[in-house]
């Protein structure tokens, strides 16, 4: 199952839900404060010109994370983001079926 992908593997245009945090210490707290708790929806928006860091849409705010730090966040199955923010709703079957490929 797609339960253990690091957030750093999420490409621009893809979204996924957080399943667990692996980061420890103050970074763990910081990620939680940004809203990266299990169940939260994250969309990868774009890479910076040199590829790292990447910008993510997290609970309505755009946050840049370095790849190294994003590795500490585990996400579930990625799907294509529609561009509109989705709050709390579950995926439609079409999305599950259509965008399951990683």
């Amino acid at each position, binding site marked *: 199952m797609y339960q253990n992908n690091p957030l750093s593997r999420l490409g621009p245009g893809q979204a996924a839900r957080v399943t667990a945090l692996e*980061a420890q210490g103050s970074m763990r707290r910081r990620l939680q404060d940004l*809203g990266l708790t299990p169940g939260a929806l994250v969309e990868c928006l*774009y890479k*910076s*010109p*040199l590829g790292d860091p990447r*910008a993510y849409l997290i*609970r309505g705010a755009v*946050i840049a994370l370095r790849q190294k730090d994003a590795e500490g966040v585990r996400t579930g199955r990625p799907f294509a983001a529609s561009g509109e923010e*989705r709050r709390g709703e579950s995926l439609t079957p079409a999305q599950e079926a259509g965008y399951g490929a990683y």
Partner: protein
Amino acid sequence: MGLTKNSTGLGAAGGDVALVKGSPDQRTAALAGNPNVGKSTVFNALTKMRQHTGNWPGKTVSTAQGRCRRQGRDYVLVDLPGCYSLLSHSAEEEAARDFLCFGGADCAVVVCDASCLERNLNLTLQVLELKPNALLCVNLLDEARRKGVAVDLPQLSRLLGVPVVGTAAREGQGLEELMDQVERLCAHPLPQRERPLVEYGPRLEELIRRLLPRADQLAQGKVPARWLALRILDGGGSLDQALAQGLGQNPAEDPEIQDILRQAGSLAEVRDQIAACTVSRAEELAGAVTRTGGGYSQRDRKLDRLLTSPLTGFPIMLLLFLLIFWLTIAGANVPSQLLSQGLFWLGDRLREGFLTLGPPQWLTGLLWDGMYKTLAWVVAVMLPPMAIFFPLFTLLEDLGYLPRVAFNMDRCFQCCGACGKQSLTCCMAFGCNAAGVVGCRIIDSPRERLIAMLTNNFIPCNGRLPMLISLISLFFLGAAGGLGASVLSALLLVGVIGLGLLMTFAVSKFLSATLLKGTPSSFTLELPPFRRPQTGKVIVRSIFDRTLFVLGRAAAVAAPAGLVIWLMANVQVAGASLLAHCAGFLDPFARLFGLDGVILLAFILGLPANEIVIPLIIMAYLAQGSLVELSDPLALRALLVENGWTWVTALCTIVFSVMHWPCSTTCLTIRKESQSWKWTALAVLIPTVCGLGLCFLIHTVSLLAQA
């Protein structure tokens, strides 16, 4: 880049949490909130102060205080640094938390961004747990409305159990009601909450229940017992020290508490749960009171893609900076000449008037040839570029572009073992290096903060920009004129700044490999929504708050320095002037680096302010040679050439101006921020050594090329 007396003066680093109260019946309210929610705008609107506001996170780097008077009573408002949480242990968060704990505020005002309520409520809940006598200010309602976000304020107030006021602080809406509520809260504090705001699940609640009796005794009514119990469970960090200081005893070391904790077993999971419960409660609350998601608009999405894509990100960045410098150079040219002509004409008339009084000749020389001319030069050369550069840069800042620069550049800083937010402190350095050094507080890791402080001086501040511009246009433009010339000099200026940036990278990398070893710490940066800059306000504010302030400071240094240089040029010792002696003494050393004694002396005398270096050089040459009309650039060039300048001298002067010791204000600020003379000495040494080394290289290569 808050460039005011407070942020650049000697008070820059002092008094983070100290509260200045006038009279005992004065009331205090603390303003807390996430970064970039318009906290400073609310603060300014209420206190009629002009704390600089900008559209990037972490701008308020220390607490600011202001007063407002209502119905015969004084209110002190404290603007706390923006933070996402009170639990993450960064310097700003600690400052905010400690003030809320023991700062003695009567109430807290939590400022939220209406269009991003869920994330903001996380901090709100934490503040309310710590400071129950609080109210919520839902700001940026106008912006949220445009994004189609509606917030049910009465419902939010019911759910949170505190007053909620909606505001649009930039338009001045809702502020009266906000102060009414502050007044009410100060006079009649909210009763104790019956049910806790956030519930943490059975296991945690049971632990809290067991800790509560002892926590209540330890808290002594200074902080809520439930909050203290939670922090004990959370454990550790700087909070222990703050608590030990505020309560007279570290609760974690209390035997009874330790007993309970021992019985509880592992607490790792508990800590996660505290954070997770707060976040999910915030999600629940936001869901209950907001309609439609809001957040990130399609327009911002498109703009961001353009500003940060691999193809267009860097070119746009370069073009924007080029455009700003070009406008500064092209626009400042004519006003500078007019100002210089006008001031010198005025000086001559005043001098004639003064002469009719029959003063001794030395006094005339001292006042007019020494003080007035240096002053006039500083004003003529500095005022026009600053009056153009500052508003333009502030517009860029207000728009929200600077965090995108940090996003684009982060990779480079990461390679150097530094923090991406260093781009922001570099941007601040264009205004003033002292402000840039204070700004380094936005960097969490102490190691990376020191790197940013030690390298800040490689970015030329506005005191040095005019000098660079005039040297570039005097020596490197040749016969080109008009549009081509100004574009070319903007390009060269960007090149020089690029050199400074390159040195920043190199030295950062060197430091993190040697003196400041360590792994790069984590990095999170918010990219705030773009906001339409308030053009009129920006122009007025940046001229009055920044330009005139900086100019005043430069003038205050220029006048006495002009006096000193005139005295040195005219006091004769053993057949030669003091200036000739000093310059002669420095000359052999300076020649090694492509400079001459006068230039090096000017840099040394320019320690209080870099603005006066070029005027000092000119004054020194003038005192030794013949008088020329200075408003004419050709005459100025002739004067320099007459004194042995070649393009190599100009290049070395430019390089040395980018890389030499920081001005005295910056040095003192570094001392305050780093709490160490050792690091301050290093901050002086590093750029000086780099500058001298590079100048030596340039000079030697040019000699070899000629031979």
